[in-house]
């Protein structure tokens, strides 16, 4: 059974049908791409899969469990984590605290234990520190642990966002334009990181991207959205050579 099964998903804003009858499925461990011209509805799909928007039609299941229309926190706890197109870090918190917020729900000490500084507080905070550092090391951010997130260079902010999403221990990771604003070298490095994350954490990844080199480089399958509707889907190389897809991107 597929990890993520999306069936006839659709959403309407007033009179605008932003996404219409969109279906796809992702197997466990797959790297799946979601591409399409600007305004095609890609981020809207992400917003529905993470509970920011409630779909007006259709449904999606994660590991067989129907999560359609659930609240964002619940969907996150069930195992979908994401990054954002316009980076959304906790800017006034340090790098390590950003990751520790991601780890929040994996520790159980209560408010009273925190205020009274009981032993469980120290034990679990130590574990949090260790786990957060492990994640930061994966993304080469260990040296910046005490830097404010807003003071990181752009590329590292993107990495930190991925680290924070991974901290919530998801089954499925959604990356919204991870390579936006990066130069070719950074993009190449990012591709390695994404592959590494998939292998190390045994992660399933769905990503939105405009950089075709990145998409053809790492995605095994892609779906193409245009004006809210599916234009094509299948193995990356084939889809990218589909005349319909080329027309949608470049015009007649």
């Amino acid at each position, binding site marked *: 059974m597929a990890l993520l099964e999306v069936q006839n998903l659709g959403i309407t804003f007033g009179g605008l049908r932003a996404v219409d009858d969109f279906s796809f499925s992702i197997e466990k461990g797959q790297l799946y791409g979601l591409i399409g011209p600007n305004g095609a509805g890609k981020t809207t799909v992400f917003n529905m899969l*993470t509970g*920011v928007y409630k779909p007006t039609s259709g449904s999606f299941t994660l590991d067989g469990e129907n999560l359609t229309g659930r*609240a*964002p*926190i619940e969907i*996150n*706890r069930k195992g979908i*984590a*994401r990054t*954002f197109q316009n980076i*959304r*870090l*906790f*800017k*006034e*918190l340090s790098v*390590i*605290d950003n990751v*520790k*917020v*991601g780890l*929040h*729900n994996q*520790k159980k*000490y209560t*408010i009273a234990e*925190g*205020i*009274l*500084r009981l032993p469980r*507080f*120290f034990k*679990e*905070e*130590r574990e*949090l*520190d260790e786990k957060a550092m492990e994640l930061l090391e994966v993304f080469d951010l260990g040296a910046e642990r*005490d830097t404010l997130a807003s003071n990181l260079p752009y590329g590292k902010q993107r990495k930190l966002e991925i680290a*924070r*999403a991974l*901290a*919530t221990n998801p089954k499925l990771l959604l990356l919204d334009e991870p390579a936006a604003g990066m130069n070719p070298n950074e993009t190449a490095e990012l591709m390695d990181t994404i592959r590494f994350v998939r292998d190390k954490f045994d992660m399933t990844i769905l990503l939105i991207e405009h950089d075709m080199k990145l998409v053809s480089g790492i995605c095994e399958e892609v779906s193409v959205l245009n004006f809210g509707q599916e234009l094509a889907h299948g193995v990356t190389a084939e889809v990218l050579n589909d005349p319909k897809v080329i027309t949608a991107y470049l015009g007649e």
Partner: protein
Amino acid sequence: MKKKVTKNILSACIVLAVYLVIFALVQLGVLSRHYQSLLVPIGINIILAVSLNLTVGFLGELTLGHAGFMSVGAYAGCLFSIYCDLPVAIEFPLSLIIGGLTAAIFGIIIGIPALRLKGDYLAIVTLAFGEIIRAVITNLDFLGGAGGLKGIDKYSSTTSAFTTVFIVLVITVLVIKNLVNSRHGRAICSIRDNVIAAESVGINVVFYKLLAFVTAAFFAGAAGVLYGHNLGILKPGTFDFNKSIEILVIVVLGGMGSITGSIISAIVITLLPEVLRGLDDYRLLIYSVVLIAMMLLNNNPKFNEFKEKIKPKKKGGKTVKDDAAQSADGEVE
């Protein structure tokens, strides 16, 4: 581990030293009667400012109803101590807790609908709440109405008043500091920095907003009880929105999200009008000018650089927990 313990002992020593110095000054008569009478208001303002900083500075929501919570707590706690005949050692802490809890319950009642709002809207709703409370109290006879609630037991002496306020103050600072430096505090700060991202990593935004709001209300209520026992009378007029604004000024001046800043600024703002008393007619004018000057200075990058320089440097290898575990006088940022 060892470093953390020494640091805690050091902080405790500093707190104790501050207490003993002020105690000695009072006993030796170095402080004039006038300044002695300011010790309790300063302490109360510190409690109010530090607790308001939790919502304004750490949660990032602008609320203007802090005086409202203070009055609810003051009336509840003082009524209890008027009608209750227990030994002071039991009765007073109980009245503090009752005042705090009543304010916290009002915090929940106001918070659940109001915290759906953001920014200016929340500020105005909380402002309205404060005014409603005042109007209701003025019209309730059993609370003394506009004439005020009289016959509240006063502290037996200046030193006992000061000691009581100091203990409550230390507890307040410790609780809020420890809360902020825990996973729950990080959740509160994450909401301030980005609500959408906080939700996306599974933070229960409604719960943590309410937690910060209610905790702040609790301590405002306790501060109200201290206030009532200091004067022996409660007048609803004291808790108007000017009081809320005054506390907000303290928080903004001390720096959003800085507990040490709130403490220092509460001392300065409470003392300032009194120090200027000799200047009669010009007093309010100078007070306002000094406020403007301090705000400008606080926003000056050069001055902030200077502040960074004189601040003790953070050591590289230490863990966050060292920071978290120290007590009242440390810096939270």
